[in-house]
């Protein structure tokens, strides 16, 4: 709700971040964790309301899927905005634990033990 009419004006700072490589949507899986950078970088500009909503939600680390569910927005839409925020230095991200054919025994054991405590 609200802010739709001001969006055009505020989009500009994000369009002007030139130079740096644009983050790819592939950087964001459903279980990639994002966290707002606090305090924001000195060169940060005022984010749009939608971006601000995201920043508030990721003051604490949160997974992309959870963020989308809480904001009631499609994952693809959230990811586009997260790309903007990453590019603007407003968030950091942590990729999921890599899973390979030869799985990491420590990790498996840790998950197993955690489930055992449920």
């Amino acid at each position, binding site marked *: 709700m609200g802010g739709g009419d001001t969006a055009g004006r505020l989009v500009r700072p994000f369009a002007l971040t030139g130079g740096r490589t644009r983050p790819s949507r592939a950087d964001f899986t459903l279980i990639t964790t994002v966290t707002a950078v606090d305090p924001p970088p000195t060169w940060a500009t005022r984010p749009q309301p939608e971006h601000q909503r995201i920043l508030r939600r990721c003051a604490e*680390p949160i997974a992309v899927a959870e963020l989308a569910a809480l904001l009631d927005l499609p994952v693809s839409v959230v990811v586009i905005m997260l790309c903007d925020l990453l590019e603007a230095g407003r968030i950091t991200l942590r990729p999921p634990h890599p899973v390979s054919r030869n799985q990491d025994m420590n*990790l498996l054991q840790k998950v197993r033990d955690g489930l055992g405590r449920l």
Partner: protein
Amino acid sequence: MADSDTITRSAPDTVKILIAGGFGVGKTTMVGSVSEIAPLRTEERLTSAGLGVDDLEGIEEKKATTVALDFGRITIGEDLVLYLFGTPGQQRFWFMWNDLALGALGAVVLIDVRRPETSFAAIDFFERRDIPFVVAVNGFYGEHPYPPEEIRDALALPEHVQVLLCDARERGSCRDVLIALLDQLIASAVQSDGGGRLTPGGP
């Protein structure tokens, strides 16, 4: 607390497990039973880009489809969180499991004991891609007319795939299914440590 580059200090490591199976077999119910949060629902836009011709069979819209995903969360520890994703049950969306399956530890294939055939596609999917899975038979009304071995035979499952009887509405029962999956993963990791890669379902 100053700069860390892209990796955040307090963000946990994350892993996921898929809860798959046919339409209405109890996937969302299972996610809800073990999750520490009520199952969340989100929409994901998926494209068929990168799929083989075979995979596209039966899919009318070849560009993009929006599907709903249910998921839950289990905090394993301060630094590790497990997510459970219920795959969309409708058969015409199964192609999206490709994206979802990427990076998963493994899967639970849920079967409705009254109509097991609705989960055949899920079993095929994970077998073909060599993604480890266990089969959990949801008894609906707590009834289990067939012993696990009979179900294994009927489904022609290889010996290393565990078959469990469960009640998707019960937390303890669902937890045991997940533990069985982890035990199976650990067993095959041990085996491949000791030389010789496992070839599940192979010749």
